[in-house]
């Protein structure tokens, strides 16, 4: 698993609109953000599509967890 990090200038938007923005960047991004079971965390708390993102926030998209 590679863990690419990126800086995005898209402050004040919702998680849903960030997903749309990222999906336009290319196939790899589209697959990750649009997968049905992809989870989102903002500042390391689980977030939903309606949550707002502001300057300085850390946003992560990841698949269902398989630890333990």
């Amino acid at each position: 698993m590679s863990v690419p990090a990126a800086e995005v200038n898209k402050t004040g938007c919702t998680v849903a609109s960030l997903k749309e923005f990222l999906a336009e960047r290319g196939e790899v991004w589209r697959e990750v953000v649009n997968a049905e079971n992809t989870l989102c965390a903002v500042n390391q708390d689980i977030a939903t599509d309606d949550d707002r993102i502001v300057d300085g926030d850390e946003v992560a998209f990841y698949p269902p967890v398989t630890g333990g």
Partner: protein
Amino acid sequence: MMIVLSMVTKSLFIRRLPGAEMNIVVRIGKADFDVGAECRALASHSSQSGAVVQFVGLMRDSNQGDDVLTMELEHYPGMTERRITEIVELAQQRWPLFATTVIHRVGVLYPQDQIVFVGVSAAHRHDAFQACEFIMDYLKTEAPFWKKERTLTGEQRWVDARQTDQQALKRWQV
């Protein structure tokens, strides 16, 4: 694949300090653990400790009909520790516990290696059994870890989440 974005300026990390007064220990790392030492540590917090329940998860050498040679575990540093601490706090609100320890290994592991440890101490066994299982069920479904296995045929694949783990969680949500 996990993507982490930081929005324009430096990431804002909000980290709570683990509740030392609640005797919560959460350790994520490559190092193995000693179950006996953890048991003694859990019992040491109160002379009223009458029960220590521990769960140890081990790596199996097969999955979905294939021989598995190695397993590589990844996590989301920061969020993983935080989420586990929150799960332990939920358990402590539900059952009277003296101490709780959660250890989860990351990196490359081999069959029969210890992966995860959940241990709790309480006055009585019922609370300790329940709390240990509760923490383990939540950890399986909510703590951000991912397993990648390498099989005998050389295939590398990410392990899929199990529906049965989601079902296990439901019995606590009443």
